[in-house]
């Protein structure tokens, strides 16, 4: 039962912090949009037609050839889950918040390690996603490509010679591909260089978003860099462009960390250990404060100043301290204040296990 495991366990493969450049690049994600030929896009479908799309995808994924290539996958209807369970999938970045509206028409396919997920009837009939730790966009694309090829053996895609994969929104037409890398950039922020870097990114056709999209930008100093253009560039070109730009940002963040260590070592150590201490002993923690403290402690881990705490734990906690998972753990809805108390208790418990 992969879905039950996915919902009960806050861990996901992308949190392992073991990929290339994992001290700055937390995760790499690629998603491609695909639609079935001859069927209107999801926003025009009634319940019955939407179920037909789900059924077609179900038939495609139970194909033996698909499971032998793609791995152990399972399709679940969003309507079979509770609101909290659906939100946990969003918090783990396995589905988008958009999949939650009109959920009775939607479904998700998950591979047991959660590296591959397919959203059905989001903005497009299929949104195939691959999410892995570190800077590994090419690897993510190779996986997606394989899944896509095996699905295409049974599903007829809406495709045109001229415009490529046809999507509901013209911003996705062509490759239908959005590739992104999640970066942790606290040092650039500390030396006030972040604005310049982010500004430069928008000049080379890439976009920057916060952890859960715009408006959440500063949370945990986490930034998603992704491509804007999907038409007229091949998948490889899109990936190479992002990797080139992201590598530059990584170099600059690294330089900023080195400079801080060299010139302001006591300031960095103070920041990191205050965060560590607060997380270890605080009795009330809001989500925002916890995310800030995680970022500061994470910096210490990534710079080798703190031992005994692994970035994997922090990645996992960013999901576990979200309201949905807290509700699930406590068994009932809580007021914001009680949630802050419960959150602090949960973090204290985890930190008391550390050496």
């Amino acid at each position, binding site marked *: 039962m992969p879905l039950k495991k996915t919902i009960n366990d806050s861990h996901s493969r992308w949190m392992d912090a073991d990929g290339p450049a994992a001290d700055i690049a937390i995760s790499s994600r690629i998603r491609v949009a695909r*639609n079935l*030929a*001859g*069927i*209107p*896009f999801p*926003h*025009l479908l009634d319940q019955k037609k939407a179920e037909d799309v789900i059924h077609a995808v179900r038939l495609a994924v139970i194909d033996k050839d698909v499971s032998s290539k793609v791995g152990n996958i399972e399709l679940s209807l969003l309507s079979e889950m509770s609101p909290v369970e659906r939100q946990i999938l969003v918090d783990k970045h396995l589905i*988008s*918040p*958009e999949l939650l509206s009109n959920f009775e028409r939607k479904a998700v396919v998950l591979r047991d390690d959660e590296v591959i997920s397919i959203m059905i009837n989001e*903005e497009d009939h299929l949104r195939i996603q691959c999410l892995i730790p570190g800077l590994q966009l090419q690897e993510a694309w190779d996986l997606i*490509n394989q899944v*896509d*090829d095996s699905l*295409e*053996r049974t599903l*007829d*895609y*809406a*495709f*045109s*010679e*001229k*415009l*490529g*994969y*046809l999507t*509901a*929104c*013209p*911003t996705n*037409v*062509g*490759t239908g*591909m959005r590739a992104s890398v999640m970066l942790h950039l606290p040092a650039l922020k500390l030396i006030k260089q972040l604005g310049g870097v982010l*500004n430069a990114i*928008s000049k080379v056709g890439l976009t920057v*978003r916060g952890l859960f*999209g*715009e*408006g*959440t*930008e500063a949370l945990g100093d986490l930034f998603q860099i992704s491509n804007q*253009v*999907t*038409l*007229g*560039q*091949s*998948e490889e070109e899109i990936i190479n462009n992002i990797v080139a730009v992201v590598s530059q940002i990584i170099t600059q963040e690294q330089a900023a960390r080195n400079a801080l260590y060299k010139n302001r070592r006591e300031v960095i150590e103070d920041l990191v250990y205050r965060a560590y201490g607060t997380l270890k002993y605080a009795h009330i923690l809001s989500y925002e404060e916890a995310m800030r403290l995680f970022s500061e402690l994470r910096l210490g881990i990534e710079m080798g100043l703190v031992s005994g705490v692994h970035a994997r734990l922090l990645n996992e906690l960013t999901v576990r301290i979200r309201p949905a998972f807290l509700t699930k753990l406590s068994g009932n809805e809580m007021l914001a204040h009680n949630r802050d108390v419960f959150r602090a208790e949960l973090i204290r418990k985890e930190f008391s296990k550390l050496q």
Partner: protein
Amino acid sequence: MMCKRCGQRPATMHMTEISNGKKSETHLCEACAREIQAQGFGFSFSPQLQLHDFLAGLLNHELGGNKHDHDELTGKRCEKCGVFEGQIVKHGLLGCGDCYPYFEDRLLPLLRRIHGRTRHTGKVPERTGGRARLIKEVNNLKSVLKEAVSREDFEQAAQVRDQIRQIEKSLEDGGGA
């Protein structure tokens, strides 16, 4: 043009707002546009929605000004899915894959504006698209040609032969790849 809000960065987002039948335009830099959107939607704000609003504005511009302000069930209709031009303009979403060729002349300028290009150069699905389909079409035409020749309908045969040559040439030129 500089951003109307901060006056410091170049304006890259141009938003058209229509309220009470009056059209007003705002020119913002990306940072200010994002801030304004974030204020409006709060924490659970979805970036896709913002994009749709933005696109809807662009589409409105491409697909015929503001004549669809009041009723979305107006304008040209896609023959396949029946979606109205007004609906596309309002929601920023097309109705089906066939909307692309159907509204092509008006979509192309928009695609150029969004992507800078109008021709796909990426992956081609093995079965549903690309060279495979062209090759299949050539094979079909070859059997039509054979049949026309056997019927001694040389006029049709010549036409079909030209069609085959055209496709084969585009295949040689890397068309469909």
